[in-house]
């Protein structure tokens, strides 16, 4: 099992080292640490502006959110276990010839991915803060507590979403019952004690105790163990049958550019276990956490500030829907067809625009629920403008392989700068006057031009997708 884990870690390293160069890939945690170091100097300023203790809560929820964003193993489990691209056969697939249960192979994969995210993202952030600690008045003891509590917070988000997606994959009814049970338990606790249950990683940060640590580790261990036990890969040799849906979709999507390609992508998304699951776990749950996070900032934000910031974050998250449409393209799927890379990009962006019915509904729903109906229009404009700009930057930088953003420091820095600067400007304007949020619509023009440039760029590049 340990050998398998080590082989998978090596494989992950080699895959990324081949794609981006070993030095560039190794530079990623350094870059993340440097950004955290610089960001840490804002801590005293923000801490003073917020009610006591809120900054710690926000940071811990943020790490919970990060964990949740990478914890959807239950959605991708079957794909992981059958991971073969062209001539490449990955360890998770090849290990099936070894005398190991599929649960063990999958456990090794989950452990490998968890360690990778910890090493590449989480620990560098904490290291960056630790390096800045002498300048921002953070004691060594506080840094050590942060190291523990933020790691556990990240793992809590990861384990929580792993459990939810695995239950979802096993039975929609069981998933509903689990959510209902959790809501009822929290409701009962609220009624009985008047407060939410303590968030253990935060408890550990505020005052370390062995009992809180033991409880956190036990909860994490239980969540991982139950998820792994419940995980049941589709048996090899099983045949999933479906009635012909392509023809119906092709007719309905006739107004999109390249309706055949869009129909294929929609079927990929739906049948891969995505569809409702993707919307729920990649958009709704992270956005609920974002709302909670932003609501902590409400006292220092102007009226409707939470809604407007939420719309911007929804725009950024909505732009990641583009990855849903590229995740299941296999090299060679288009090799024998008269399709150019530009056609693929335009087709996926057409479908991406159609999928915006979901984030539009989320922003409008949030506006109504938060009593911000009067600024619903600028909120919507901000979401759409930010999403369009973010996806155009993504397509320009990464083409049809948007996951590159997460691993290539050069691409990541360029993306953060290209998206971050206009977004910050937009937020400032909207906080001054919500109606200035309409300026976001001005991003649609440059986004369109950038997509055209992206098409030229990726048409000229050697086709990697073929």
């Amino acid at each position, binding site marked *: 099992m340990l050998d398998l884990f080590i082989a998978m870690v090596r494989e992950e390293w080699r895959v990324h080292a081949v794609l981006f160069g070993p030095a560039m890939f190794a530079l990623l945690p350094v870059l993340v640490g440097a950004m955290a170091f610089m960001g840490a100097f804002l801590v005293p300023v923000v801490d003073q502006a917020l009610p006591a203790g809120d900054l710690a809560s926000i940071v811990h929820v943020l790490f919970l959110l990060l964990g949740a964003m990478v914890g959807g193993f239950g959605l991708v489990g079957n794909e992981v276990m059958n991971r073969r691209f062209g001539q490449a056969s990955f360890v998770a697939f090849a290990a099936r010839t070894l005398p190991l249960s599929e649960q063990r192979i999958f456990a090794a994969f989950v452990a490998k991915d968890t360690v990778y995210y910890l090493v590449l993202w989480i620990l560098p952030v904490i290291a960056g803060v630790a390096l800045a600690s002498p300048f921002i008045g953070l004691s060594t003891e506080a840094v050590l507590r942060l190291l523990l509590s933020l790691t556990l917070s990240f793992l809590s988000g990861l384990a929580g979403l792993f459990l939810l997606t695995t239950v979802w994959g096993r039975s929609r009814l069981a998933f509903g019952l689990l959510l209902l049970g959790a809501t009822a338990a929290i409701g009962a606790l609220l009624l009985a004690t008047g407060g939410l249950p303590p968030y253990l990683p935060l408890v550990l940060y505020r005052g370390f105790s062995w009992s809180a640590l033991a409880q956190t580790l036990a909860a994490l261990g239980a969540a991982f163990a139950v998820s792994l036990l419940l995980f049941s890969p589709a048996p090899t040799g099983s*045949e999933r049958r479906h009635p*012909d849906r392509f*023809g119906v979709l092709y007719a309905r999507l006739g107004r999109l550019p390249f*309706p055949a390609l869009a129909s294929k992508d929609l079927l990929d998304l739906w049948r891969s276990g995505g569809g409702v699951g993707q919307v729920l776990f990649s958009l709704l749950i992270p956005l609920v956490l974002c709302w909670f996070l932003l609501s902590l900032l409400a006292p220092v934000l102007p009226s409707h500030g939470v809604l407007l910031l939420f719309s911007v974050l929804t725009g950024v998250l909505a732009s990641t829907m583009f990855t849903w449409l590229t995740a*299941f393209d*296999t090299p060679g799927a288009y090799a*024998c067809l008269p399709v*150019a890379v530009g056609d693929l990009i335009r087709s996926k962006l057409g479908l991406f625009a159609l999928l915006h019915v979901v984030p539009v509904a989320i922003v409008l729903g949030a506006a109504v629920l938060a009593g911000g109906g009067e600024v619903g229009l600028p909120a919507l404009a901000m979401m759409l403008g930010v999403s369009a700009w973010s996806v155009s930057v993504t397509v320009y930088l990464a083409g049809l392989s948007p996951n590159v953003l997460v691993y290539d420091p050069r691409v990541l820095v360029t993306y953060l700068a290209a998206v971050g600067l206009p977004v910050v400007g937009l937020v400032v304007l909207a906080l001054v006057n919500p109606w200035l949020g309409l300026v976001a619509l001005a991003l649609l023009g440059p986004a369109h031009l950038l997509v055209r440039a992206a098409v030229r760029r990726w048409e000229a590049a050697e086709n990697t997708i*073929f």
Partner: protein
Amino acid sequence: MALVVEAKGLSKRYGETVAVDSLDLEVPEGALFGLLGPNGSGKSTTIRMLTGQTRPSAGTATVLGVDTAADPVEVRRRVGIIPEQETPPSFLTAAEYLRFVAAVRGFAGVEKAADWWFDFLDFGDKRDVLCKDLSRGTRQKLMFAQAFLHSPRLALIDEPLVNFDPIVQHQVKEFLVEYVEKGNTIFLSTHILEVAEEVCTGYAVLHRGRLFATGTPDELRQTGRHLPEVFLELVRQDRGHA
């Protein structure tokens, strides 16, 4: 006779590795042309360049009169292709995949053509199964069907028989011969020399990316030798010199 494939000095380099080295090739219309060679000799790279899937590092190629580097999409529109890997999209069923290919190609007669192929290659019982759940042999049948769905004048097919059982291999070989007899052209890449000797009207041998020999089975027959024998001898000689 008109040439349907013409390559001049066609080369492909991957860093220091030369996959195909200054290949000159001419394939006349109506030929069943075999591109032969051991594993790693550059056959698949040649097909990938001829079908615009990858750009040549040097040299030019025209397929049905179209420059493959200048207009790769037009080349793929005009020909049928079976790529090296049988990778139809995972989450479409076999029937949906053929509909998808027909829709992309703007081919109207998919219902009738698909039924014919399901029947001919005997996999109609798999039409509603997701491509990812099909066996390799059935995926290969599907790839074969998509390549000929629109009855192209020229088909470039890479190791098309490798996953088929002997019965299907026999059927497919007969199909290829009949297809060429109708005036179409087949560009077949294979390392199964017996197949090439049996069905091809002309062949070229690639070894280490270089064109090693060309000829026809008729010329071979006159020498009283068989293609596998000649091929092994040539390759061994070359390895001895290397």
